[in-house]
C-alpha cells in the first residue's frame, strides 16, 4: 500500500487537457476537471478555466498552485490596468502579463496556460503560453498532458470561420477524446464561450459524452445481474 499512501503527499498537479479555439465572432475555451496528487484524484470536478477580467479567461494546466497564484497576480494587475485605462483590457495585454510572470519566474513555475477572450479591437483571440514563458497567438491552442493525443485530431478537424455551435462541439469532442486516452485527464468537460455579447459557461457531465473505441459503458455494479429478473423458462 506504500505507493498509494505516498500519493497523498505529492503536490497537486492538474494532468489536464485544455483547449482554446477561435470561431467567427469569439472564442471557446474548454478543459477537463481532474486534479491529481500522484495517482489519487484530489478533485474530480475542478474548474480549470479561471476568469481574469469580464472578457478574458485563462485555462490552467500543470501545477495547480502555480497556475492559481499566477492567475491571481494577473487578475490583480489587470484590474488596476482597467481602472487606469478607463476601458476593458485587451486580450493581448492580459496574455502579455501572463507571459511576463511566467517567463521571469521560469525557474520556479511549472504551468502551461491558454489565455482566451474577446475585445472590441481584435475580436476573439487565443494566446498559448507554454512552460518556458513564450507567447504564441494562434487560431487554436491545446495544452496539458492530454493534448498529446489531440494534435492529429485538430490538424484534421479544425476549420477557419466556424460557428459558435460548431466550435463548442469541436472542443467538447476533443476534450472527451483526450479524457478517454489520458489517465491524468477525466471527470466532466467545462467550456466557456466569450464573444461580443458576453460570457457563457457550459458543463457536460460524463454521461453526456460519447463513448469512443473500446470504452465501456458506465455501470453501477456487476451485482445488478443478481437483481435482474430471472430469464423466461424455455418452451418447446
Amino acid at each position, binding site marked *: 500500500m506504500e505507493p498509494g499512501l505516498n500519493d497523498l503527499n505529492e503536490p497537486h498537479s492538474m494532468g489536464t487537457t485544455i483547449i482554446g479555439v477561435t470561431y467567427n465572432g469569439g472564442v471557446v475555451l474548454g478543459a477537463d476537471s481532474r486534479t491529481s496528487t500522484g495517482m489519487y484524484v484530489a478533485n474530480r470536478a475542478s474548474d480549470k478555466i479561471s476568469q481574469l477580467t469580464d472578457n478574458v479567461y485563462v485555462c490552467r494546466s500543470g501545477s495547480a498552485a502555480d497556475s492559481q497564484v499566477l492567475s491571481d497576480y494577473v487578475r490583480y494587475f489587470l484590474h488596476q490596468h482597467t481602472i487606469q*485605462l478607463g476601458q476593458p483590457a485587451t486580450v493581448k*495585454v492580459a496574455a502579455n502579463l501572463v507571459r511576463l510572470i511566467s517567463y521571469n519566474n521560469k525557474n520556479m513555475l511549472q504551468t502551461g496556460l491558454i489565455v482566451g477572450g474577446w475585445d472590441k479591437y481584435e475580436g476573439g483571440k487565443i494566446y498559448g503560453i507554454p512552460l518556458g514563458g513564450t507567447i504564441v497567438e494562434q487560431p487554436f491552442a491545446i495544452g496539458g498532458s492530454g493534448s498529446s493525443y489531440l494534435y492529429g485530431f485538430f490538424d484534421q478537424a479544425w476549420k477557419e470561420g466556424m460557428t459558435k455551435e460548431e466550435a463548442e462541439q469541436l472542443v467538447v469532442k476533443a476534450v472527451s477524446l483526450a479524457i478517454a486516452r489520458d489517465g491524468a485527464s477525466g471527470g466532466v468537460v467545462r467550456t466557456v464561450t466569450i464573444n461580443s455579447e458576453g460570457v457563457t459557461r457550459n458543463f457536460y457531465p460524463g454521461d453526456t459524452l460519447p463513448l469512443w473505441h473500446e470504452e465501456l459503458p458506465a455501470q453501477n455494479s456487476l451485482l445488478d445481474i443478481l437483481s435482474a429478473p430471472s430469464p423466461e423458462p424455455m418452451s418447446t
Partner: protein
Amino acid sequence: MSSIGTGYDLSVTTFSPDGRVFQIEYAAKAVDNSGTVIGIKCKDGIVLGVEKLITSKMMLPGSNRRIHSVHRHSGMAVAGLAADGRQIVARAKAEATQYDGVYGEAIPLKELAGRVANYVHLCTLYWWLRPFGCGVILGGYDRDGPQLYMIEPSGISYRYFGAAIGKGKQAAKTN
C-alpha cells in the same frame, strides 16, 4: 497684466495670498516667449509644426530639432527651454518603452500624456526642484485614432484638436 508677487514668488512651494503659485506662472512665461509650436489633429493623423529659430548664421540648418519621436506611434514638439524639453522627451520615451515591455502593446496616448503630465507636475512640488520651463505638444495615433495633447509647465494636460504655444500662439489660434 502685471502680476508682481513680491515675497511670494521666491519658491515653488509658496502660495500667494490670492492662491497662486508664481513660480509656475513665471515658467509659463518662459514658454510664451519662445518660438511658436502648433499641433493639429486631422481625421487620419496629427500634424506638428515648429517655428525655425536661427540664432546665428553659423548654425547648421537641420540642427536644433524641436520635434522628437517618442515611440513608433507618437511624437512630441517642444516649446520653451530646449534643455528642459530634452528631459521631458527622454522621460516620455522611457515611459513608452516600459509600458510596451510590460503590456506588450504601444502605450495609449491618454496614458502617456497622463504620465508625462504627472512627471512635469512632480517638479512643481519640491523646493529643491524648479518647474520645467517648457510646454509640450504630444501627438500620436493609437487604437482610438489620432489624438493630440498639450502639457503645460504646471503639469496640466488637456486633449485638443488644435493647440498652439509660444510667441505666436494668439495669432495661430485666431487663424
